[in-house]
């Protein structure tokens, strides 16, 4: 129901919006989203701006003192803070290792679950269970029932086999936490890979079989290629969550060299006993900037996910 407009010679003027609307088409699409956008800006950007402001002050509440502007002092201190450097290294270890290992294990289990067998539904449910548990509970179960020097199952098995018990959480804190994370995240990767496997077109596989391809060859050439976007999704989601890891660290080791990652270190410097809100804010600003840089790089350059969207 557009009104006809007399075209000028040589120019085409697009029709304006119909007379029953005050707003243009694109604004009508955006307006309902505005409340959500405002909400998001209020809840994420306003605190962020305030954090930037706090990071430029020397705000401490123990001992209480006035909050004074100190410019970039906190950032200078950060550069010399080798505890922050250790925290970054632990963060990297506790993100990369669990993501990769759980991806590999998740894919393997998904491949096994992809065929029909008796009790498949029950097995699948049991395999999903670790992901449904609260992280605090996972940390406590592993610390007290599995890893414990006296009461732990793993050490009981080791002793039965004639070895000496190992105090996992005390002697190998990073590895212990990483193991609980692998246990927690393998079901997640498994579910994503299962979705990928089940969406694979079977005619290509059958054609390959007719041509005489070995099963491993099929897996390597066809299946993995098809699963690549699913793997990238799994890595992306797993990394986003694991970067923020807090629960297992708080419950299993309470921090300390080898198990303090960046979020836990920021917590310790702020409400966990340091009460230095200015300094802690500067750490978190640095982490935000680093995350944006890494995420942009990863999403734009390495991932096929967005390329796939553009093509589709």
């Amino acid at each position, binding site marked *: 129901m557009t009104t006809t407009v007399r075209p000028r010679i040589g120019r085409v003027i697009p029709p304006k919006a119909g007379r029953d609307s005050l707003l243009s088409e694109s604004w009508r699409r955006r307006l309902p989203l505005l409340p959500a956008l405002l909400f998001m800006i209020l809840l994420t950007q306003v605190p962020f701006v305030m954090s930037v402001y706090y990071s430029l002050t020397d705000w401490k*509440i*123990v*001992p*209480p003192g006035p909050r004074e502007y100190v410019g970039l002092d906190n950032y200078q201190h950060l550069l010399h803070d080798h*505890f922050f450097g250790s925290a970054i290294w632990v963060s990297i270890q506790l993100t990369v290792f669990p993501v990769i290992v759980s991806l590999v294990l998740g894919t393997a289990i998904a491949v096994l679950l992809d065929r029909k067998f008796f009790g498949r539904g029950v097995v699948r449910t049991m395999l999903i269970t670790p992901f449904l548990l609260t992280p605090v509970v996972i940390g406590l179960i592993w*610390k007290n029932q599995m890893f*414990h*020097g*006296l009461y732990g199952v793993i050490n009981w098995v080791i002793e039965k086999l004639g070895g000496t*018990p190992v*105090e996992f*959480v*005390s*002697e190998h*804190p990073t590895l212990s936490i990483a193991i609980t994370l692998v246990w927690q995240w393998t079901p997640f990767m498994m579910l994503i890979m299962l979705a990928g496997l089940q969406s694979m077109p079977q005619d290509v596989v059958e054609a390959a079989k007719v041509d005489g391809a070995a099963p491993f060859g099929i897996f390597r050439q066809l299946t993995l290629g098809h699963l690549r976007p699913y793997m990238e999704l799994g890595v992306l989601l797993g990394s986003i969550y694991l970067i923020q890891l807090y629960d297992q660290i708080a419950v299993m*080791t*309470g*921090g*300390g*060299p*080898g198990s*303090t990652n960046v979020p836990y270190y920021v917590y*310790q410097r702020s*409400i*966990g*006993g*340091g*009460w*230095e809100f200015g300094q802690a804010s500067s750490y978190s600003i640095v982490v935000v900037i680093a995350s944006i840089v890494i995420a942009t790089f990863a999403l734009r350059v390495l991932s096929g996910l967005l390329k796939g969207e553009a093509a589709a």
Partner: protein
Amino acid sequence: MRRTVGATLIAALFVGLGVAGCGDDDDSGGGGSGGSINVAMVDNPQMKDIAKLTPSLFTKKSGIKVNYTVLDEGTLREVTTRDVAAGGRQFDVVMIGPFEAPQFGQNGFITDLTKFSASDSAYQVDDIIPAVRNALSLDGKLYAAPFYGESSFLMYRKDVLQKAGLTMPAQPTWAQVADIARKVNTPEMAGICLRGKPGWGDLGASFTTVLNTMGGTWWSAKPDGSVDTAMVDQPEFKNALQFYVDLIKDAGEKDAAGASFNECLSQYKDGKVAMWYDATVAAGLLEADDSAVKGKNGYAPAPVDKTQASGWLWSWALAIPSTSTQADKAWKFISFATGPQYLKEAGTKVPGGWAAIPPGTRKSTYQIPQYKKAAAAFAQPTLDSISAAPIDNPGTTKRPGLPGVQYVGIPEFQDVGNQCTQQFSAVIAGRTPIDTALSNCQDVASGVGG
């Protein structure tokens, strides 16, 4: 038509969510006819006991409903400091100790309880053990009412030492204790349980008493009592830490780097350790009716080296944040929880029996006949340790800050203690060399003061 129905449904959904988000306002105003108060407490057994008994012993009589938030020590400190020092206004009563009470009192964060306690005759403020009362006061004003008081001493299995042909001296030294521990140490039963969990109130408390009596200190003090220089790099500090670490390595409990009060308690009760240096409060749990080691334990004063006494002094006490609007109701609760009447009633009502009532606060507790009988093994050693705790002069040199034995009475000690004990715990676990830990700790400690 379809579009209108869809839009209406979505609108209804939003309205519903909005209403749901606005509800749920069940703080003060609800509860009994007398209102309700919010109390933050630590998760030790005596506190859990009173939380269970409050409805029948307090709420029924006063009409005031008590909403408990029971937290572990670390989280409690976090919540309390945030609430009290940053004006959180969440609680009417908070549980703090002699570390926080004088500091918060000095800063005006908590209410002076002197007026309340003086006008409440049932409270009998003069019955409180003087050492505990002084630790919670500043300039004669009482800032927190003690719920229980403790010092530290050495608990040991008399039967195990007897079987090995060893006797515990009346005032043991650390050298003697280490010797005994190494002699009775077997793969099934460790010689001694010492705290190793990071935290200024965990490993920090235990280790600082050892440090004090071996002639070391965290910081030296200027004449006016402020912090001078960090002394973590001194030989006395290293000796004390090396002694502690070596003793654990040779004769200590399993998983020492994660062991605190609760872990040592369960290992001792299970017969996995022969001795345990920790809070006097533990004795009540070891001699409780439901304890497997009841009657088998001896109690010796905290081992010393260069000083006369080295037991710590601590009290979990209740204070009223100055931001609370219900100070009168809060005092009524405090008067119940820390008054003499609860102690008389609790003996028959708590699961552990008379031995498990909150100890170390009042002289009258130690006059109750049933308590004297149930606590015969440890009552006098407890009282002696509390009175002997060298709170004003814990070591061989002057300390900065407010009085304290197992901590340094400056606000920065929380942070320095936490960071340093994390390093020391890693040494106990064998992951960090002791010199690296000491050097890291010296860096942290040097950031304090002038």
